Structure formats: structure tokens, C-alpha cells
């Protein structure tokens, strides 16, 4: 859409033309609001966007360093753009507005005639006028392009960086530098961090926590000069207190300024301190021109630098354009509430956070040890006016929604931690119906409760799709879908059953069902859902609860799905496939020959798998022990392809052979595969190890993926291929061998402990409260104090691992079940037959009549 020739004025067009300058988050929200108002149907809508990519989530920019790709940051649905016939010109900023002729000229030379013009040009980072500010190695932090440039420069040239500005964006930028592995300084002129959002107490709590995380924070200090080397690159910065910091990269993040130059050039009114002046309908001094978002100075005289007010202005402008003079939409100012996770610290401020209201009082709770600070500002009559939360923002959603009303319990009880004499936490049910739950989209509790599920809330109200901080509260407001139970037999979730089995050491399914199952299911058989799920939990915990780790012993035998029961993978005609373990994908020629011989002898269809091993298909059940006797004899073990267990750890050839490799990826893959083989989990587990950043082993598509760095290993978690591909997120960087293994131990055991049945790590990571950050808190920072226990559970697993096939072959009782017929053990199943294809076998399908579940006729 960018390649067409510059468009001449379209005066002949029958419809009206609306031109939007700027396609950031607010611009995109405005387009959506236009569509909702039906204006895209009656208008030609043209968008000029300076950046080379459509609107993306600027708020989450730092998440690029934890693995979100630019594509994943996008908030633009191309289908939406196409469906509404919006002409979006990327990389082509507006350069000139002629208000008299009502035209906009773009850099590429497009001249667009408008009936309505909307400016959503955002803001530019403010760079203080210090000497050396333009040196090589100086950056701002605003766009994906900035982030890419910082990353590229840091990789080549920098070990230590400084961020000028300790506000919200500054801390975001500092998080990015830390994510790049740089030593990081923060220089803030004000006496505390986040001066606009938090008070002294909150700033102090924040400072302690950040210092504890290895950041060097310099508050009450100005930047005087950026010092450069002979080549003109940053080498240090000098501060107003006379000190000098050795840094080779500087990010300026000292606030933003409204981007109002286009408006100034065409003589639209602007505020004294910048910002295009608009009225309550977001109209500028020219009624045909609107301005929304950070470039505008709202009717209350303020310039809002947060996305939520920008969204509100977008809605207001669209409504005003649709309604003309009858408009009753108005933007008169917005709440500056924010909740963020900065550098791993939760920070929130809402309402009158600084206690500016006459006669107001503070209620504060501070715990320096845990880095928690909470302050509420309360009016003389007890009305909650605002507050600051640092370190623990659990109550943010409820408190913000209660702001402006008198809370049903005294304010001091709202800030005390649970168990410290606090009243039971104030639940969301205490909120009035008109309490605003989602600030970004201005959605009330009543509107949320009109929906039944979170996806429905997001679709119908957009609540929860902005900053996402209200998602938890929304979840609490929705009807608990009645029954979260695992199945008709158990009212508990898998995680709850795991805790019951672990703490009460229940090693028997019957005991679990009869004591903890639903009343109606007690004494019954269980079902096909809970039996394998409980079997998996018992197997995962076997050493710790005194159960036998062999999955086919005693009662456990009756619980396993057929694949586990026969230690092989059932295929569509009733035959099985066999997958020996080939750790790391490394195999000697001799062992390869054994596999070939076995396959030839038993006439098995042979295929290389995606996980760097070999699958042998077409074995009849009574052949399995004979086949495995040969394989075990040659030194093979079960590959657990049949289990919800570790499958493979793929590897590239690594440093040993590859000229790019920086670590021995094959050795690490083998070590990991041997360590976690046989580990039973809620779902299958896949892994890979790449020997360098070229990532030939595709580790980021795995449940846990390891990528070598020059100084160690990066660990990525939660990746998936399959129907819902997901790139794994970076959990930790530059780990040594022992550190890597310890962290994977913890991660896997935490997953096993808390995941739902058949929930892969990718879905689990997306589902659990707090997501990746929470998992990192738990497994890296040990926030729950359970890491020692998780490690001990894994150590038990490793100690007690036995090869299931070797054990089976050694026991005639166990072998007895591997028969085709109980009354004719040697007779092959007459329905298992094969026909040739491409020199191998395939199931004789005419024997079978595969039919879908629906519409089947009687036998």
C-alpha cells in the first residue's frame, strides 16, 4: 500500500475524507473507535505513519528484551485495517498542513485533502541540553527502532550504561540495559525515583529494592556532560556532584515533550509548555482539526503522557466527529493511575497519590525488609482519595476502583499485610457497580459483570486489553465458572490434587477418589480423565510419597493410558510404534545399525522424528518385548515417547565441530536429557540446546530451551510449536552449567506442581497469575521459599530413575500383559495388517473405517 504513486487531491471523491496523522497506540484506538461509530463506512480514512511499522505496544517496549518480538508487540490487526478500507501509509510522515486548502502533504509527496484532520503525533523524548548529548552511544528510548539501535550498539561497544532520568520510562530503560547484560546506572535529578508517581517513602522502598538488584542509583544528581573518546564515542559522564561515571552508553529518558511542530507551523493554538490546545471534544482551535493523545493539551490544561487518557481522548474525538454539534462526549481530564512492574518491582499509584487535597490524611505501612511500601490518602470524611503501592500491588485494582468513595473497612486495614491483624482482604464484591475497573478503556464493574468469561469481556468491552493491570480483578468479578474441577470425579484442580497427594502422601488412586473425590464418584472407578492425571501426579512425586516409581506396578497399572500401559505409542490400526532414547540426538554407527537391524527383522516402518530420534512403526503388542529385548541389549533405553514426560533434548553440533559454536551444546543436551528422562509431567516436555545464537536446534520453540552465549547459557521457557506456536521467553542469562541445571530443576518442578492437566508450559505460563515475572520470582528469586524443596524433588527423581523397559523385561509378571489375546498369547491380531508403500509398510486401511465422532451410523 506504500508503493502507489503520490495521490493527487481527491476532490472528486463522493465521500468525506478523514486524515489521521500518527499511528501509535492512540491512533490505532482512534481508528477502532471510528469503526465502532460507523465512520469508516462513510469516510475515506487515510493514515500517515512515520514509523516503518504499524501501531505497537509502546508501553511494553522493554518486553523486547525478555523475548517479545516486534511482531508480538503489534497492536494492529491487519484484517481490521483491510476490512475497514483504511489506507495506512507506513514510513511516510506528514510534513505540512495547509488549513486553508485543507490539505496535508507527506514526505513522500502525497497531498491529501481532508474534511477532518486528526493529529495523534505523540511526543518526543526530551534530551537535556548537556554537552556531548549527540555523541555515538547516546540514545533515547521511545520506539522499537530505538531499542534495536541500543541493542546493536550495546552488543558491539558497551559493558556499562547509564540512564538519565529515574522516572517511569527511565526505569523501563534501565530494565532494558540490564536485560542486555550491561552494568546499569540511573541518574535522577529529583531526590527520589519516580518523582511524579510515588512519594518519598515509596521512592525509598523502590531504591532499596533496585539497589539490591544490582542497579547503581544516583538521585538528587544532574548530568553535566557526556565525555567522549578520540573517536567521538561515549566513555564517561560527569555529574553535578563532581563525580564521574565510566559508561559507554547513555540513554536519555528525562521525560517527553508533546510533538506539536506540525500544529505550530500551521498556526494552531498550542499551550505555553507545549501541546496542541483542544477543547472537551478534542477539537483544536480549528474545528476541522482534532488532536488526541500525548500531543494534545487537554481541556483541563494538562498534557497526559499515559495511554489510558489517550484512549479516552481517541474515543471522545471519534464520538465528536460522528455526532457533530450534538456531541455529548467530553474529555475533561483523566486519572493518572498507573500500575507497573519495573525491574521486577511492582509499583502503583492512583488518584491523589501525593496528598494534594486540602485536609487529607495519610495512612502508610512500610516494611524495608521486604521492600514494601503502601500509602493511602484519605479525606477528612474517610473518602479514599488515592495512594501509592510499592512492592505489593495486589490490592491496586480494588483500591483504585474504590477511590472517591468511603471504603467499607477502615483505611489502615487496607494497607496492612494479611495476617498482621488485618481484616479479611476487601474483596471485589465490595465495589460499587459504577466503579471503573479498567481505566484504559473506562469500563465499569457492571459492564464487566454483564459478560460471562474473560475473552467475552475483552471482546465486548475491551477491558483488560490495554495495560492489562485489571485482568486479575476482572477474573475475580466474573462468575467462577461454577466448577473448576478436574472431571466428574474430582472437584479439585490438578494443582489441588497435587498438593493433596504431596502433603497427605496419598499414593493410591482409590484412596484419593474415596476420600477426596466428589460424593457421587466415591467408590466408583474414576474416569479416563482423572486416572492418567492422578497417575502422573503420583509418578512425579513417587519417591517423595513412598510410591513405587515404576508406572506399571500395582494399582498404577490400571490408571495409565494405553500408551503408558504398553510403554509404546498406539497407532490407528491398533499396532504400536517404538522410540528408543537417543540422548541429544547423538548416536554411534553401531547403535544405528542395531536400530536398522531390528526394524528390518520385524518389518517396521522407519521414520526420523522431529526430535532427532527414530520411530519404528507397526509393532504388534506381543512383539514389543522381543523388540525391546534387542534394543535394551544394545544399550538403548525407553524414549518415553508414550508418556507425558520428557521427550527429547535436541541439539546442534556445537562448539566441537561448528565454526560458530561457543559452547558444547551436544554434551549439555545429553546431560539434560539423561537428567530429566522419565520425569512425569502434566504434559509432554520438549527441549533443545543450541551452541550459539544462530539457534539451529530451535530451542526457543521448546518447553525449555537453552542457547549458548560466550559466557554461559541463556535459558528460555514456555516455547511451543504445534497448533499454537509460541516463542519461549528468556528466564535467565549467562548461567554456568550448575546454575542452568539448578534453574531448570526448579522450573520443571514448579510447572509440574502448578499446571493443569494436559497444560503445556506455554499455556501454563500464559495462564498463571503474574506470568513469566511470577515464575521468575519463584524459581530465580525464591519468592515463595520453595526452591530447596523443588530441587530436592528433582534430586529424588534423578536418584530413583530406572529404565522402564529394562525393568519390564526382567519381570515375567510384567511381561504377561504384552500378549495379543489372553487366551491365545502368540496369535497376531487379525485386524492388524499392512500393505507396502515406498518400500516400507503402512496400515491396511480398507480393514479400518475411520469415522469422525459426529454423524456415525450404527455398527
Amino acid at each position, binding site marked *: 500500500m506504500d508503493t502507489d504513486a503520490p495521490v493527487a487531491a481527491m476532490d472528486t471523491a463522493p465521500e468525506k475524507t478523514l486524515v489521521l496523522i500518527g499511528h501509535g497506540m492512540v491512533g490505532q484506538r482512534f481508528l477502532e473507535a471510528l469503526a465502532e461509530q460507523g465512520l469508516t463506512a462513510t469516510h475515506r480514512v487515510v493514515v500517515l505513519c512515520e514509523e516503518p511499522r504499524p501501531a505497537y505496544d509502546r508501553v511494553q517496549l522493554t518486553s523486547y528484551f525478555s523475548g517479545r518480538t516486534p511482531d508480538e508487540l503489534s497492536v494492529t490487526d491487519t484484517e481490521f485495517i483491510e476490512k475497514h478500507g483504511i489506507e495506512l501509509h507506513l514510513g511516510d510522515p506528514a510534513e505540512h498542513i495547509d488549513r486553508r486548502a485543507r490539505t496535508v502533504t507527506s514526505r513522500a509527496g502525497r497531498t491529501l485533502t481532508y474534511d477532518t484532520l486528526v493529529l495523534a503525533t505523540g511526543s518526543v523524548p526530551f534530551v537535556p541540553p548537556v554537552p556531548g548529548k549527540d555523541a555515538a552511544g547516546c540514545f533515547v528510548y521511545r520506539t522499537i527502532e530505538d531499542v534495536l539501535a541500543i541493542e546493536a550498539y550495546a552488543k558491539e561497544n558497551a559493558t556499562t550504561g547509564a540512564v538519565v532520568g529515574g522516572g517511569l520510562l527511565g526505569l523501563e530503560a534501565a530494565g532494558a540495559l540490564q536485560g542486555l547484560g550491561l552494568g546499569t546506572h540511573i541518574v535522577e535529578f529529583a531526590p527520589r525515583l519516580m518523582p511524579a508517581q510515588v512519594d518519598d517513602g515509596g521512592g525509598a522502598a523502590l531504591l532499596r529494592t533496585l539497589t539490591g538488584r544490582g542497579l547503581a542509583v544516583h538521585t538528587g544528581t544532574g548530568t553535566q556532560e557526556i565525555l567522549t573518546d578520540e573517536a567521538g564515542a561515549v566513555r564517561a559522564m560527569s555529574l553535578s556532584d563532581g563525580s564521574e561515571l565510566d559508561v559507554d552508553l547513555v540513554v536519555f529518558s528525562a521525560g517527553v515533550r508533546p510533538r506539536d511542530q506540525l500544529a505550530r507551523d500551521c498556526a494552531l493554538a498550542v499551550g505555553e509548555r507545549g501541546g496542541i490546545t483542544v477543547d472537551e471534544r478534542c477539537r483544536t482551535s480549528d474545528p476541522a482539526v482534532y488532536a488526541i493523545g500525548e500531543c494534545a493539551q487537554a481541556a483541563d490544561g494538562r498534557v497526559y503522557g499515559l495511554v489510558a487518557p489517550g484512549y479516552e481522548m481517541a474515543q471522545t474525538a471519534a464520538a465528536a466527529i460522528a455526532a457533530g454539534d450534538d456531541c455529548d462526549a467530553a474529555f475533561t481530564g483523566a486519572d493518572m493511575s498507573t500500575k507497573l512492574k519495573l525491574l521486577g518491582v511492582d509499583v502503583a499509584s492512583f488518584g491523589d497519590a501525593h496528598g494534594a487535597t486540602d485536609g487529607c490524611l495519610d495512612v502508610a505501612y512500610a516494611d524495608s525488609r521486604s521492600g514494601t511500601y503502601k500509602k493511602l490518602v484519605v479525606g477528612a470524611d474517610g473518602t479514599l482519595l488515592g495512594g501509592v503501592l510499592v512492592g505489593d500491588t495486589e490490592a491496586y485494582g480494588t483500591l483504585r476502583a474504590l477511590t472517591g468513595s468511603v471504603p467499607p473497612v477502615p483505611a489502615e486495614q487496607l494497607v496492612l499485610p494479611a495476617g498482621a491483624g488485618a481484616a479479611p482482604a476487601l474483596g471485589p464484591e465490595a465495589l460499587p457497580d459504577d466503579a471503573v475497573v479498567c481505566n484504559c478503556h473506562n469500563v465499569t464493574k457492571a459492564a464487566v459483570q454483564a459478560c460471562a468469561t474473560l475473552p467475552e469481556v475483552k471482546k465486548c468491552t475491551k477491558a483488560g486489553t490495554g495495560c492489562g493491570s485489571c485482568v486479575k480483578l476482572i477474573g475475580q468479578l466474573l462468575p467462577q465458572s461454577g466448577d473448576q474441577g478436574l472431571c466428574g470425579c474430582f472437584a479439585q484442580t490438578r494443582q489441588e490434587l497435587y498438593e493433596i497427594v504431596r502433603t497427605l502422601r496419598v499414593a493410591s488412586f482409590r484412596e484419593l477418589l474415596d476420600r477426596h473425590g466428589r460424593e457421587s464418584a466415591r467408590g*466408583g472407578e474414576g474416569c*479416563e480423565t482423572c*486416572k492418567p492425571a492422578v497417575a502422573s501426579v503420583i509418578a512425579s512425586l513417587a519417591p517423595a510419597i513412598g510410591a513405587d516409581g515404576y508406572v506399571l506396578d500395582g494399582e498404577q497399572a490400571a490408571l495409565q493410558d*494405553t500408551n503408558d500401559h504398553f510403554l509404546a505409542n498406539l497407532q490407528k490400526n491398533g499396532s504400536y510404534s517404538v522410540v528408543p532414547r537417543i540422548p541429544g540426538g547423538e548416536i554411534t554407527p553401531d547403535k544405528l545399525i542395531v536400530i536398522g537391524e531390528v526394524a528390518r527383522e520385524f518389518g517396521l516402518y522407519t521414520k526420523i522424528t522431529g526430535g532427532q530420534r527414530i520411530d519404528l512403526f507397526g509393532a504388534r503388542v506381543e512383539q514389543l518385548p522381543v523388540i525391546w529385548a534387542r534394543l535394551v541389549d544394545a544399550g538403548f533405553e525407553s524414549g518415553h515417547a508414550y508418556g507425558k514426560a520428557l521427550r527429547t533434548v535436541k541439539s546442534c553440533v556445537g562448539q566441537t565441530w561448528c565454526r560458530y559454536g561457543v559452547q558444547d551444546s551436544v554434551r549439555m543436551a545429553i546431560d539434560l536429557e539423561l537428567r530429566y528422562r522419565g520425569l512425569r509431567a502434566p504434559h509432554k516436555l520438549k527441549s533443545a540446546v543450541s551452541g550459539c545464537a544462530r539457534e539451529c536446534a530451535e530451542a526457543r520453540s521448546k518447553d525449555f530451551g537453552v542457547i549458548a552465549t560466550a559466557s554461559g547459557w541463556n535459558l528460555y521457557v514456555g516455547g511451543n510449536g504445534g497448533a499454537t506456536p509460541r516463542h519461549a521467553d528468556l528466564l535467565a542469562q549467562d548461567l554456568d552449567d550448575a546454575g542452568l541445571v539448578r534453574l531448570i530443576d526448579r522450573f520443571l518442578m514448579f510447572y509440574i506442581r502448578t499446571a493443569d492437566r494436559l497444560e503445556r508450559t506455554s499455556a501454563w505460563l500464559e495462564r498463571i497469575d503474574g506470568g513469566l515475572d511470577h515464575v521468575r520470582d519463584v524459581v530465580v528469586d525464591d519468592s515463595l521459599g520453595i526452591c530447596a524443596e523443588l530441587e530436592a524433588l528433582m534430586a529424588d527423581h534423578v536418584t530413583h530413575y530406572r529404565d522402564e523397559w529394562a525393568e519390564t523385561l526382567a519381570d515375567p509378571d510384567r511381561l*504377561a500383559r504384552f500378549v495379543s489375546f489372553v487366551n491365545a498369547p502368540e496369535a497376531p491380531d487379525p485386524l492388524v495388517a499392512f500393505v507396502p508403500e515406498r518400500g516400507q509398510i503402512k496400515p491396511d486401511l480398507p480393514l479400518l473405517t475411520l469415522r469422525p*465422532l459426529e454423524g456415525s451410523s450404527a*455398527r
Partner: protein
Amino acid sequence: MTAMTTMTTTTGAPPATSVTTADASVQLHLDGAWLTVCAAARLTPGRGVAVLLPDGRRQAALFLDRTGHLYAIDNRDPFSGAAVLSRGLVGSADGRPFVASPLLKQRFDLGTGRCLDDDEVGVGVYEARISP
């Protein structure tokens, strides 16, 4: 297999029987006669075994539930055509035992052979008993 359980027959269910002694054997009723297929000790509660019938082609799937009741249904899964029902998991719903096909998980009532997930599908049932 020494539990002393008295059978209770639900409507439509084939006769089941109580397990009596350790060397008891399992029998299927076929063409007016009882065919001995295996020792009762070969059965694991909650799991099934396959039986090849005398015509060398038809197969039955035999199951024992946790209370000692015996059930036999046709082994062929009507959805896939494969003879695999004996390898499915036994469960119970509303107090009635079923087996879930190991291929696509459709459930079959062990007493009636009726498919619980598709009214139009079912499998044959056999009378089974344990005889000393």
C-alpha cells in the same frame, strides 16, 4: 482375586459374577455354551484383556471393575475399526462402568455396549462369568 463380592445386575447388563477362589477361571457365553478363556488371576481391576473367539477373527474385551464385577464387550472400536477397546481405561459415570476407547476416547457402557458419546453407535456385549 479373592474378594467375596455378590453381584448385582443392572438393567440391560449381561450377567456378571462374583469372584470366588484364586484358581477360578473366566468364561464367556458363546453359542449356548460357556467357553473358558483364562484364569481369573490374569485380570487387573480397572483394565481389560482381549479374547480371541473360536472363529479366529472376532474378539471380545474382558474387564474387571474394582468391586469384582466382570464385563465383556466386543473388542472392535466401531469408530476406528481397530480391535483396541480392551486397552482402554475403565471409568464410571452415574455409577455405571464404561471403557473409553484408547484411540479417540469415545466411551462405551460396559453393561449395554451403548456408546455414551454417540447414541447411534454401540458394540455387542457378551455374558461372562467366573467359574471355579
